[in-house]
């Protein structure tokens, strides 16, 4: 397998406070995975706020540099790219952001964000050709150009604005789209439209997608593989159906049991919910989930558990799985479908 983008043992630290009392926050803690070049995929990254998923997105986009480890694009470390290579990378790996309103410059018509990439990346030689590209991209994401172009962002709905952002990314002819919570600020009834356009890009145009979200149900719906993060660490990863329908890590189990299901026979109020036994003040240098974990043992607090490969398409970073073999190389891509 050739890799389009490879993250190897990447960590990202943020520092706060004066030098003599510096506090270190580990936002991303030793993560390895990759996106295949030859096979389009949708990889989900889920976790709560503060789990490091947005920092991971910034690393993947090259907007931030890892403190340890590296992010490699087609064999080339992002950290030592030339200006020309970086410009090419910018085009090939495209972001979609969470807030579909703030992503538009209010001064311009929505056309602006679609025209700029064509000009900057020299994607069309004539005005007519540029126009054609825009129309084509809008139609691919299910928008009618006549109803979208020539308007200001505030005149369109959140769903339409976000699909224009998908069209914008698409115009750059990317090979990978990093979508950071693309539907969390859109009405539930409009989410399907945006996710449907992302799936079209993946299936029909062969564009890989990293879908970052806190919503397990949509991740389950669109992803092939999933990475569950907690406190900057990978706690569970693998084929999406296995991980979400039969979660093994206590945190994934907690996440899945917190999904508000429409099934009235599974109401939370009728279930035993174990309030997390919050160990006040105790900081874990091992598994970050230990303070909230009902199964935490002493060893969990002292050293981070390795990823155990519990089956061919799943790895779990939990000592409860220590009868399974340790995942070679710590790279969760090896358990992906």
């Amino acid at each position, binding site marked *: 397998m050739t890799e389009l983008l490879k993250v190897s043992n990447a960590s990202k630290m943020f520092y706060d406070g004066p030098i003599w009392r510096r506090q270190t926050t580990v936002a991303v803690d030793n993560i390895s995975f990759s996106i295949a070049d030859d096979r389009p995929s949708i990889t989900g990254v889920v976790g709560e706020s503060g789990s490091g998923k947005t920092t991971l997105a910034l690393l993947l986009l090259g907007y931030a540099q890892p403190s340890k480890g590296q992010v490699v694009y087609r064999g080339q470390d992002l950290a030592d790219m030339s200006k020309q290579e970086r410009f090419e990378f910018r085009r090939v790996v495209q972001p979609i952001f969470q807030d579909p309103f703030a992503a538009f410059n209010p001064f311009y018509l929505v056309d602006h964000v679609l025209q700029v990439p064509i000009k900057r990346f020299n994607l069309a030689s004539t005005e007519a050709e540029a126009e054609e590209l825009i129309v084509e991209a809008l139609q691919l994401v299910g928008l009618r150009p006549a109803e979208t172009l020539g308007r200001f962002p505030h005149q369109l709905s959140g769903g339409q604005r976000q699909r224009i952002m998908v069209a914008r990314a698409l115009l750059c002819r990317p090979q990978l789209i990093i979508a950071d919570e693309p539907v969390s600020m859109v009405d539930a009834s409009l989410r399907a439209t945006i996710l449907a356009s992302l799936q079209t890009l993946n299936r029909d145009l062969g564009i890989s997608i990293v879908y970052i979200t806190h919503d397990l*149900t949509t991740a389950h719906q669109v992803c092939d593989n999933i990475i569950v993060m907690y406190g900057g660490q990978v706690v569970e990863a693998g084929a999406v159906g296995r991980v979400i329908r039969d979660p093994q890590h206590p945190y994934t189990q907690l996440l899945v049991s917190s999904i*508000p299901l429409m099934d009235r026979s599974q109401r939370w109020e009728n279930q035993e919910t174990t309030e997390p036994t919050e160990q006040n003040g105790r900081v874990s240098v091992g598994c970050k989930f230990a303070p909230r974990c009902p199964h935490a043992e002493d060893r969990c607090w002292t050293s981070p558990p390795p990823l155990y490969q519990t089956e061919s398409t799943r790895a779990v970073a939990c000592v409860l799985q220590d009868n399974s073999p340790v995942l070679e190389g710590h790279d969760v891509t090896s358990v992906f479908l």
Partner: protein
Amino acid sequence: MNRLLRLFNSQRITTNLIIGLVILAIVILVSLLGPMFVDMELIEVGAVAPSKPPSAEYLLGTDSQGRDMLAVLISAIPQTLKMGLIAGIVGVSIGLLLGLLSGFFGGPLDTVIRVFADSLMTVPGIAILLVIASNIESMTVEVMGLTVAALAWMYPTRTIRSQVLSIRERPYMAVARANGESELEVLFREVMPNLVPYVAASLVASINGAILATVGLESLGLGAQNVHTLGTTIYWARRYSAVLRGQWWWWAPPIIVVSLIFIGLFLVSMGLDRFANPALTGQGSARTRRRKNKAQRNAAQLKAAANHQTGADNQSALLRVDNLQVVFETAAGSGPAVDNVSFSMQPGERMGLVGESGCGKTTMATAILSLVRPPGRIAGGSVQLGDIDLLALRDEELRKMRLKEIALVPQAAMNSLNPVMRISEQLADAIRVHETTLSQPEIETLIRDSLINVGLSPEVANRYPHQLSGGMKQRVSIAIATVLGPQLIIADEPTSALDVVVQQRVMLTLGRVQKELGAAMILIGHDMGLIAQFSDTIGVLYAGKMVERGDIDTVLNEPCHPYTRLLIDSLPKLESESEFIGIPGLPPALFNRPGGCSFHPRCPFAFERCMAETPEPQLVKGRQVACHLYPDLGQLPPIPISSVVVAGDGALPTGIVDKTTTDANTANGNTATGEAQS
């Protein structure tokens, strides 16, 4: 070129801008064309008979020195304008350049510029100007303008810098970079246009300030000596006691012209604000609306009183809403956000209120609390809690009802807590307003108990909101809302900003507290899953109308209204990897609701009657449904797949294109207005 023209899209041009430009144009034209019609020789001393009031020969009269005032004015205007423009443009250009560099690049450059600008600001400008002006032998308008600019550039620098700091953090900067723009392009194409209103405001303020400052100096006799300006004209008028002698035609015209220039520039700056930010919408006068609101409310009260006598049958209901109508009126149009809604709730009942953004959920909640603000107003109907008619209460009585009888758990707890008050003070404030007889220890006990009750440690009372997590803040809001034991709790998407795990805990707490109090609860949300988890009954709102209302199990098991069905289907299910579908199109904009059933443009089952006639609520299978399919239809058929958006099965049906967007959202910004009201 046509892109440039599109920038001048008609929506950007406002009356303010036009009136301002017209005023300035008139002033400038008078000074430019004046010399063609007026003999400019007449500005010399003794050229005409002195001290004549305005007449047909000398339109503005003459001064005591024998000068024609019209000629003097015409020669003075361009000098004053020139001085103002030099001061304004030079000052603001320096400010724009330094502010941009300082804000965009930051670092040491920023520090140097700020220290320099801030220390200059401590120097009293007017005093320096006085010293300079009185020491320069041959003061000209150019020197005057530059002097003013040198003493005023720090103000625009500061304004621009703070704006750039905020703009450079906006997500569209990242989008521009992803689009391949270089840093300089980002600066000039993305940041600069958004500075237009601030630059315009600074320019206007600088020009005005410069003109006023120099008119002041000149009227003290410290201005340019070789030419007439508006200021020196006032100086001479004062010098020769024009006011005492009643020669108003001498001093009034220059003052009027200065005022006109001021007003013109002010209107232009307001207009430029709108030009640069097309999302701003016209808002009309708040006062007239408030007056109207009151009058309408009186009418609503009369109507409600009449209703009260007829509606005594449903005695057990805690809350009864009858024909509630909330109308929004703005310059862009008017429409009903809540349209003739009636329902009742039993004590202890949990009612889920669902619908997409802009369907009137939040407006309904604010109407029940009588908190509708202009441009919205309650236009009719009644809201009764027990036997109290809420809409008939005076403001003071209403205020006492809130929190004690009806409490709101707001959407964004992080914003609803006062950041500079400890949690204990905020709780104590809420209690004291309603329970004036409680002693301090009693209040403290109450605070302690209420915090423990929502699963927080009593120590939280001593903390400030920023020391709490999002979930803890929302628990504090629940504690405040429930501390006085209300009969009705309205929870408006109480967990929309929280993570799933925290959401579950907070909802369980809210549910427990509500049950213990025996209070009824309205839970507003657009997540059907959450509503299913926590409600006994459900009300589905679409375009301000209650389209389905009934027991939650009944409605979820077999939704009767197509909208309810589509809302349920739009939620992805965990059990199956089958497709989940979206509802094509959007809820109609508030000011442009389609006739008949508002849902017909998006409804897969719509037929002719739906376009012509508004369906009334009717009883179908144990719940209220407002749909023309009934009573003829036995069961809602499956949704035809071609009419919806499907995710999960790969291929996109042709129906994916939004069918209703054009008619639902005309080009005048209605969508945003509609969404903002939800």
